[in-house]
């Protein structure tokens, strides 16, 4: 096992979301491991831009031929932008989970919860252990 990509510059949650930080803007998507486990993704649904979320809240859901899963944010803030293109082309998440398959951008009120997340090496071994 261990064939999936795990970019070094990102933070990772146990629920298989990745977090990229730029100033106070946090971009969230799901990992290569997650898309591989889910198999073909057929549907995504996100909360609306402008909604505020707490850390630990669900910001949407993803559905594949195998399962439906909730998506969680580790940071609180306002949803600044939603990747609407995924609604018509959810397979983009399979093809490019860390690039065009990004899901939401949150204008974070506090970045400190990200310190509690895994780095790439820790996430890799976490996935290997599953």
């Amino acid at each position, binding site marked *: *096992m261990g064939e999936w990509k795990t970019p070094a510059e990102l933070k990772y949650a146990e629920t298989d979301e990745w977090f990229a930080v730029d100033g106070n803007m946090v971009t969230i998507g799901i990992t290569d491991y997650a898309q591989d*486990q889910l*198999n*073909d993704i057929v549907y995504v649904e996100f909360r609306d831009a402008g909604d505020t979320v707490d850390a630990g809240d669900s910001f949407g859901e993803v*559905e594949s*031929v195998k*399962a439906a899963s909730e998506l969680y944010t580790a940071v609180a803030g306002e949803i600044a932008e939603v990747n609407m293109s995924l609604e018509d082309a*959810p397979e983009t998440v399979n093809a490019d989970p860390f690039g065009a398959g990004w899901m939401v951008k949150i204008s974070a009120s506090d970045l400190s919860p990200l310190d509690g997340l895994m780095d790439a090496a820790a996430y890799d071994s976490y996935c290997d252990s*599953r």
Partner: protein
Amino acid sequence: MLQPLIYDIGSPGRMGVNLPECDVPKVELPAALMREELPLPEVGEVQVVRHFVKLSKLNYSIDQGLYPLGSCTMKYNPKINEDAARLPGFAQLHPLTDESGSQGALFLMHELQQWLGEISGFEAVSLTPAAGAQGEFAGILMIRQYHIDRGEGQRDLILVPNSAHGTNPATVTMAGMEVLELPSNNKGNVDMDALHAACEGELRDRIAGMMITVPSTLGLFEETILEVIATVHDAGGLMYMDGANMNALMAAVKPGALGFDVMHYNLHKTFSTPHGGGGPGSGAVGVNEKLAPYLPGPIVEIVEDGTADREEPVGATYQVARNARSNDGRPNGSPLQTSAGEAVEPPLYGFVMPEKSIGRMKAFHGNFGMHLRAYAYIRVYGDSGIRDVTRYAVLNANYLRAKLMQTYKVPYPRYCGHEFVLEGHFDDAEDVHALDISKRLMDYGFHPPTNYFPLIVPEALLIEPTETETKADLDEFVAAMERIAEEARDDPELLRNAPHTAPVRRLDEVRAAKELVLCCAPAKAAASV
């Protein structure tokens, strides 16, 4: 296309019957109800018969072979159930017949309520929910109302393990409450640390209850179930048991005696009434004395005591109940006598709404045809037979598990209940997945097991053989699974393209999920959508 839709084989004006002259005054339908277009199929009788016979020959059923669809308990449906359900006195009984004219049916429902209560250790049972998910919904609505009546309406959280059936969290949400998901530990049991943290932390006063399946969806008996129940009760919550897996417990464990407050039964699983095409389902609920006043109604009760000896054989009592009432429900002039020559008067059965009932779940009295079949099933087996059902179901599952462990990875290698989980994946055949193994089983003449559930096991194959399979049948299944494991290494493409012998080849699930075109209207109209 294998068989065209019935809309595509007819032609305008063709029909299967010639209606007689109308012998009552014609009444015009209100204009608002009239439609210009009503695209119904127009076909002759022989076309209808051939159409459905052809479709039925493409189907696979338990009457053809093993159907190890885990979590669904696709057990054989004994034909005597169907005989019972077709008795004209039952089959032609109109649901609006008054109680005096339906004492036999009421007697049967009353007896079934009592038997289900006895099997699971509950005080009272309602037969009305139409299926398992509706039974769950009834259970959670009862729990909610119980808390509201005690002035604890703030209790709005229901604990649900992450191995649960998807219907459990859906039920909680439908009932206007919130799910608190609990992790499982490495033995497949509920993580007790997480449970204690939830029940003893700041959310304590919001805990309304917990929904849990026993044995779990992994087919494993929750080894700490008594501690789970005590922990939730201590926090003020009630315990809901999802009875989907009752086939591992009947006559062995009574959920009511463990401390559960409410559970639903799937009559269409455990008690051999048909699933799907022959359905509908039936999701009776059982409760202890705390929740009895809240049961969905109506339930059947004795509304007027008789003098018939309740210890008499059931059939005799039924005959008494049926014969001794005249049309108005009152006893006939010449009362029946016991063998000792004493006059007996049967009890009068009636529909009753429990005192604080959450209301009706369904029109009329639930799916009565399913009550009849479940009644026949329990009646035929009797208490020692019901015990054997459970024992053989558990034995068969453990036999398959022990055999298949030699070829497949079993993530929780301990004694299982009536079903168990394999990982449908091999480290030395990376490209083969659970779905490929499932599809290949069809080529060997078996229905595939449930795959990709429970979600907490990667590449899950959930296998439930049920009690009726012989050792020879089980060995054939094992041989097929072993061959498939070899093929996965030698010829993975064979699996990835399976099935090869089924009426249709591998279906495109992605396209089916994305392009929701339902072709029930005439195909031409649908094509233009």
